[in-house]
């Protein structure tokens, strides 16, 4: 352990030189609103990753009591029946948590050591995640289990059942013959039920997964494509630039929304396709931003020096130039996330987004007024507010990030 007084916690806030991102973070998180936004988004991401453990009709664990000849068995229905997607997302959550632990534990190390530790950690964790993820995808087969454990527990068929906080899965309906559809909020269903007699709260939580999934997956695809194309055009310029920029213009002329509408009409609804289409059509903005940055950077001394030392191209591009030009792209990605969430919600609202019975905020909003007899406010309020707040949070966050990295706002509050 090194001297505690050197830790950032106790450092004087004044002039000590800081790494760039530390400086940005300090400026970024100064306003309370941004901290709230970040906290909200973090909670949303956590919910998206861990929702099967939060809202599920299956108990974490239960005991099947001893019957004639068989001993009592302890079962774990929830964990047994997790789907491949659930498992992979749990893995991602674990990887993120591990990354966080390494980051915080390496904070007190000296510069090069810290860098080394973090780099090794990142590589190891990413490797394990990818390996385990592909193993799950290849080997795990989803189980089908529509047993109503709540009623089993009530009738004593299973005992010692421990249920998640929200005791309903996103697709679980109340028995149809009871007619418990479109019910107002009650103790049984805290936010009421929808037109199929499903729990609104559970569907809201599961809807976060679709919203976050569409946002992050599509923007990661877009960022990857945008950065590669932007970096190449910006660095090389000339004929390369001319050709690739025409490609950018071509892609820009494709209306994402209508492309998805057409695609879904012909090939059916698959949320992964929608994510990919949003990603593949929205990278052009990032490419343009990065290209402009690279035009500026490519003649700076340090880039010339890097070239002069005979570094390979990818190293010059992505190691030396990219970190100095990527910030505007990241800001733009924040807005892109908000946009992707909106697109998914609109598609689902129009009834062309997710496949039923998957929960999505847009489709929930749609069902609030459909069939169009009465406006069922309890079905509209939750998804409406969540879409609104999520998009607002992404936008506010991105805007604050833009201000934080903008040198002209230095010194202003």
């Amino acid at each position: 352990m090194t001297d505690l007084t050197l830790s950032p916690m106790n450092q004087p806030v004044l002039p000590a030189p800081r790494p760039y991102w530390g400086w940005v973070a300090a400026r970024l998180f100064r306003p309370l609103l941004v901290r709230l936004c970040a906290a909200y988004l973090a909670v949303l991401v956590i919910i998206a990753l861990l929702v099967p453990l939060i809202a599920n009709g299956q108990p974490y664990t239960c005991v099947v009591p001893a019957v004639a000849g068989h001993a009592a068995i302890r079962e774990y229905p929830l964990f047994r029946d997790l789907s491949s997607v659930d498992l992979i997302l749990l893995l991602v959550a674990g990887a993120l948590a591990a990354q966080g632990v390494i980051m915080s534990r390496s904070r007190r190390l000296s510069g090069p050591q810290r860098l080394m530790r973090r780099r090794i950690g990142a590589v190891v964790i990413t490797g394990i995640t990818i390996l385990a993820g592909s193993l799950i995808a290849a080997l795990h087969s989803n189980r089908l289990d529509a047993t109503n454990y709540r009623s089993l527990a009530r009738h004593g068929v299973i005992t010692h059942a421990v249920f998640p906080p929200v005791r309903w899965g996103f697709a679980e309906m109340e028995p149809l013959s009871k007619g418990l559809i479109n019910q107002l909020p009650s103790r049984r269903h805290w936010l009421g039920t929808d037109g199929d007699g499903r729990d609104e709260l559970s569907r809201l939580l599961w809807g976060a997964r679709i919203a976050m999934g569409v946002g992050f997956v599509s923007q990661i695809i877009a960022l990857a494509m945008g950065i590669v194309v932007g970096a190449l055009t910006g660095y090389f310029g000339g004929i390369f630039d001319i050709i690739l920029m025409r490609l950018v213009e071509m892609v820009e002329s494709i209306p994402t929304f209508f492309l998805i509408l057409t695609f879904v009409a012909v090939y059916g609804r698959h949320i992964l396709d929608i994510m990919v289409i949003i990603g593949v059509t929205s990278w052009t903005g990032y490419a343009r931003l990065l290209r402009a940055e690279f035009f500026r950077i490519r003649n700076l001394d340090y880039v010339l020096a890097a070239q002069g030392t005979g570094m390979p191209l990818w190293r010059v591009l992505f190691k030396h130039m990219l970190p100095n030009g990527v910030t505007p792209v990241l800001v733009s990605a924040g807005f892109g996330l908000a946009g992707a969430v909106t697109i998914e919600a609109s598609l689902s609202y129009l009834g062309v987004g997710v496949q039923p019975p998957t929960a999505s905020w847009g489709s929930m909003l749609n069902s609030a007024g459909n069939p169009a007899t009465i406006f069922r406010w309890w079905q509209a309020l939750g998804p409406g507010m969540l879409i609104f707040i999520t998009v607002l949070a992404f936008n506010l966050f991105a805007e604050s990030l833009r201000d934080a990295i903008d040198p002209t706002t230095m010194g202003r509050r």
Partner: protein
Amino acid sequence: MDNRFTLKDFIFTVLLLLIIGAAVMAMAQFNYVNKQVIALSGQIKTLNQQQLDQTQILQQILRHGLKLQSGKVRGTTASQKDIRETLPDGTHYVCYPNPPMLPHNPYSRPDYARGDWLVENLGENPHTLTPFVSRDEGASVVQGWVQESLLSRDPITLKWEPWLARSYRISPNGLKITFKIRRRACFSNGHPVTAQDVLFSYNTMMNPGVDDAPQRVYFNDVKSCRAVGQRTVIFTFKHPYFKSLEVVGGLSILPESVYQFKKAGEFNKRGRLLVGSGPYLFDKWTSGEIVLVRNPRYWGPLPTFNRIIYRFIQNPQAALQAFLAGQLDTDPPEPSQWIKYTKQPGFAKSHHCYKFLTPAAGYMFVCWNLKKPEFKDRLTRTALCMLVDRNAIIKTFLHGLAQPMTGPFNPLSPQNNPKVKPISYDPAKARALLQRAGWKMGTDGILQRNGKPFKFQILLPSREPLIQNICVYMKQQFAKAGIDMSVQPLEFSVMIEKIDNRQFSSYFLGWSGGIENDPYQIWDSASYADKGSNAGDFDNAQADKLISQGRREMNTAKRMAIWHKFQAIVYRQQPYMFLFTSEALMFINQRFHNTAPVGKYGPLEANWFVPAKLQKYQ
């Protein structure tokens, strides 16, 4: 700078002045023409009114037993009686000297008055109004007011009665039908309805260039159509077919003088030409409405309303709001809307609310693709049906406004076999049946047979919340039994294409209904080929035999017995999961009188009227 006024400038100025002058003159000309048109239309209105009066006088004369013939007026001996008889040689002869009056018609009621408009909702704007070519439900509604056919069906007895025809005669073997056309019958342009027009209509229907393939198939059994003289038409058939009379008697008769064409393409393209012998004239079709006006020269009983207007409001909630605001005179509410509004005190008093079962409502079903191994056996299909609680679906999603179906025939139709009872909801029995069919529970909770898991996809039309709700419910029910069904909503046209190409495991749709349906289209094994309607490939030799027997049987009672047997087979085989037939619901504005449903068709607009005091429009 040289700023002289050159020749070029001069020419430009002159041209400019000329253009301005021309524009001013065109305006003046337009104004003049417009004035003339207004004056002319005023005159036409007066003329029409005169004609209306004349027609009324004429009809009064006719009603009092006088007959007008080629200028001479002569008294008739007593009013002639309607004849419906079977001659000793087996010929069926029906003759109505006067067109049949609708049952419960309002003409003799003391408060009966002509006038006012009827404003209804068509839902979607039709693509075209061309007869035979149009495929929208809405277009056929509009055509029904403008064009007529040789026969009409009595809504209560369901018998075919002569309409444009005065009489018809069916030969003993059912292979020849002779129609005699009424002398009075004439088109709205004044031309009489002749045998030539019937022949023209038939030839148009059979013209391969005319885009009417779905309707043409019904005429496949017609061998020939012959016009004899001015007023006699003879249809002959290749085989006896129980629907022969309905098919040729229901053919819309088009005036040849208006519709004649050289190339079939011309006919297809006349989307806005609609002329016939009916009680209303097609007036205009704008983006917001279709307007029909009364045919002042109508040969039959003079219609009640001055205008019939169809609007296009697709959203059911918007349509209901328009109805409540008085912009629409009728509205067929959704079940949930019906429940909500009929509950309100006073609503039922201030509006006519009708709820009735009609064979025309059709039914909803899930079609299994019998070519797929999982649906090959009857036990599995029966088990699937037992897993779905149709009564709960009707109670919860349809608010009780529907009836479960037992087979392809409507419970109200005489075709329906009343001995066949709906399969009841019984998950335990369904599990036993699945086990008997060879399905075993796999380790992943999904049933398996021969190593293949029971997984399939159901196609359904998107933007149909009710169907989606039911499919989500079925998914859960099937999952409880270990069957993994995924729900795939598709755009309607894409879905139809998939069904036509047989790229499906199962799909959810509805069939429209009729009084007596010919099961051939959906259930005969021959209808699988060529994208026929037997998409699930129901192939049952016994059923095929019964279908062909029934189609050839002209005796109604015997035919019904055959249909009953056929239904029992379909019930046993369960090629579809037959779900339910919805009750028809109708809200009608209070100012209309005599709106009660008549027979099995529900309220008949032709019977409605508005007493003079209550009339809203001129």
